[in-house]
Structure formats: structure tokens, C-alpha cells
């Protein structure tokens, strides 16, 4: 009976909540972890009110340093996506639909501008850029 349940649940979690860090990538490990967590929040896999494993558990399961995981969590905290309290699990507070403040929108714009400018300068058409935008947004529904 238990084995049967394991098989059933196996299909619905597959590849959904995966974290996959590549030490040979240019991007630092902590940054990769933070990016993947942010993407899970964007996709709605991690919802408002969900918790993340503790820093120690995450570090042990991944086989990386505790300080690396801690750095990622702090970055997410700075971005206002999770809440860290001592002796409690990290709580997801991002992901809900709400009015962003003018300054926050500006922040996103400032971050996006150089990337788009670079793509444009390298010859990407405006149409292609819009398509790209839509394609990425579709992943997050």
C-alpha cells in the first residue's frame, strides 16, 4: 500500500521543485540557488506562506557549505521574497499579486534596461524582443 502511494506521488512532484546547481558555471553557487528559488516563486511552485528547508538542512541535502545557503537566503530576504526569523523556517512572502510601489517598478526598469539595451545593440529586433518577453512570461502564467 505504501509503495503504491509513493509511486502516485512520484508523478506530481517530478522536476517541479528541483534545485540543480552547477559549480562549473560562471554564476556563483549562492546566486544560482537564489535565482532558482526566485523562479520557483514566480512559477507559483513556492507560494506565499510556504516554508523553505532550514539553512542547515538545505546545505546538508545539497552537499554545499552552510554559508553559501545562508547568503542566498539573505539575498532573498533583501529582495523582500522571504522572511527570516531566528529558530524558525524561512517563510515565503513573495508571489502574491499586489500593487508595487513606484520606486519598486523603477528598480525593475533600471535592472532590465541595460540587458535590453545590450540585446538591441547586438542586433535583436524589437519584435523578437517582445516575443522573447512573452515567451518567458508564459512560463510563469
Amino acid at each position, binding site marked *: 500500500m505504501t509503495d503504491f502511494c*509513493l509511486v502516485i506521488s512520484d508523478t506530481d*512532484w517530478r522536476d517541479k521543485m*528541483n534545485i540543480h546547481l*552547477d*559549480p562549473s558555471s560562471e554564476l556563483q553557487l549562492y546566486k544560482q540557488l537564489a535565482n532558482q528559488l526566485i523562479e520557483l516563486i514566480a512559477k507559483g511552485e513556492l507560494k506565499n506562506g510556504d516554508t523553505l528547508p532550514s539553512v542547515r*538542512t538545505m546545505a*546538508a541535502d545539497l552537499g554545499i557549505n552552510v554559508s553559501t545557503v545562508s547568503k542566498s537566503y539573505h539575498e532573498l530576504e533583501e529582495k523582500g521574497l522571504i522572511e527570516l526569523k531566528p529558530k524558525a523556517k524561512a517563510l515565503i512572502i513573495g508571489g502574491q499579486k499586489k500593487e508595487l510601489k513606484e520606486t519598486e517598478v523603477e528598480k525593475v526598469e533600471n535592472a532590465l534596461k541595460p540587458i535590453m539595451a545590450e540585446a538591441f545593440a547586438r542586433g535583436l529586433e524589437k519584435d523578437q524582443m517582445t516575443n522573447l518577453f512573452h515567451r518567458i512570461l508564459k512560463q510563469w502564467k
Partner: protein
Amino acid sequence: MLFIISIFIFVGVLETLTPFFSRKTTVFGVSIPEPYVQHQQLQLFKKHYSMVVGSLALTFLLGQLLLLLTSIQEEKFVLLSFILLFIMQLLSATLHMSYHIKIKKLKKQENWEAHVKTVYVTDLSIRDRDEVLSPTFFALPIIVTLALITFTYMNYNAIPDVFATHWNAAGEVDGWTEKTWISVIVMPLILLGIQISSFIMSFGMKSAKIQLSAQAKEASAIRELAQRKYGSWYLAAVNYNMTILLVVLHYTTVILKNQTAPYFFPLFISFMIVSLGGLILFIWKLSKSNERFDDLHTNETASGDDRYWKWGIVYINKNDPSLLVQKKYGVGWTVNMANKWSYIILLVIFLPILLFISV
């Protein structure tokens, strides 16, 4: 004598099959990068080990059966059986070491590390699916033992001046102990030591790392979860059974002053059946959930942890905050020697024995 022989067969079969109980990514305690899991040499090493240990166990068993036909004394036979058991374990340990070294050499010679890409993987939902037993389960028997110790002291005056502490196979008393403030609670104290270390270990079981593989992630998750769940069930079963056995023994001999109750022997047998049968069940459950690695399509592998292991047996990792870790060779858990609690566990187990010797 049949009892000793069945123990011998049990241990022999387990020792023979041990290399096949481990996860496929660890062979004789060496981490195997996932693309090399199907390496022929590894399968050969495992087979050779099983053939040598198996045939040795069989030879020893036949020797014992032949001895049974002669008019050998029971004491001599039991002693000899234990010596043979010891030799068999010594030999399988030596073989383990030699294959451990051989595989490490092979890994280096063929430069496996350079041909694979190490990645760090996990699944955020894995901890929600974990069904390892909670520490509450392991706290309950401790309360029973503390109550028993209190009850013993409340009835101290009524306890006989000497009481039985050892029985032979026929159920006759062959060991007596004089009454002192310590000797009357030695049995509950030993029990308490075992219970407290199980209790500490139950925290370690929960926080022990869950290592997923990069290319067979679902399979490795199922295997890890099964090992944690059934492993903790097995420990709890042995713990509860031992509590029942020792509490009944203590209560009957010390409080009821009955040194040869007819239920001692059946109780002991049922304890053995739960301990050995439970282990078989546990291993059978695990072998059903072993990863297969049938379709390997990339050169990716989850990171190995060889540098934290000595001979694939002793685990010392300062970066791992957990007390326990899944064994690399065989099944079950072993302590992280970099964690100070591991020494407390060992101390708590051995303290009553030291006390017992000094009394």
C-alpha cells in the same frame, strides 16, 4: 545448539549479500560517479566478495553440522561457533578494505572525476515527504524505565538479598547478583542507556542529509525515503521489544521474586524474532526500492563525499551539522564523529556497562 546455528546462517547470509544492499552509487564505501555505476569491474568485485564470503560461511556451517554428529559438549560447540562467526566477520571486514582500496585505485587510474560533471541537486519537497519516526516515539519507553527504577527503590526493602541475573539455554539460573543500591537497578540502567541513545539518534535520523542522485532523482528519492522510514521503524521495534523484555525480566525477578518464570524463554525468543525478522523485512523493503540507473544520458553526477569518510566506514564531516548519516556500506545509520553528540551516545551506551564492571 540449533539456535546458535540459525544465528550463524543468518549472519552468514547477511555478510555475503552486504555489497548488494548499498546504493548503487556507493560500492565498498567508495562514491561512484553516476556515469560509472554500470562499470563492469564494480559488478565483478561485488560478485567476488560474495563468492568468497559465501563459500567460507558454507564451509564453516558444514563443519559445524559434522561436529553435531559427534558427541561434542554443548559449551565447546557454542564457543567454537562464536569463534567461527568472529573469523567470518574479520575476513569480510578485511575483504571490504581490500576492495575499498582497489576501487579507489581504479577510480584514480581511469580518472573518473575528470570525465564527469559534478552538480549539487536536491528537491525542495523531499522533506515534506519524509516519514522518519518522530522523537516522541523514542521518548515514551524512557518514561517506563524511569518509573520502573522509582518503583524498584520504593520496594527496596522487600527485594531478596540475592537475585538471578543470568539464565542458560534451558531456562535455569546460572548467574546470581548480591543486592546493593546499584545492583538492583543495573538492568533498567542498561535499558535506559540504550533508550536515551535511541532518543538522541531519533533527532539525528530526522536531520540526516538526504542525498539525491543527479540522473535518477525520483528513484534515489524513493530509496532514501524508504531507508529513513523503515530504518526508524526497525529501531523503534527493537527498542520497544527490548523494553518489554527487560522490564518484564526485572519486575519478575526483583519485585515478584520469581527467578524462573515459564514466560522468560518465549519472551527472549520473540525478542530475537523481532530483531532478526525485522532486519530481514527492512532489507527486503530496501532492496525493492534500489535505484537502477538504466538510462544514463549525461555525464552529470551528484557530488560524492569520499573525503569525509575513512575506509568507507567512519564519517567525519565538520560541515555537516547532523549527528547521523546513512551508512556508505551496508544499511542503516552511522554517527558523524565531528559532532560532539556522537561521543555522548557512545558514552551513554557504555556507561552502564562500566558501572556494571566496577560494581
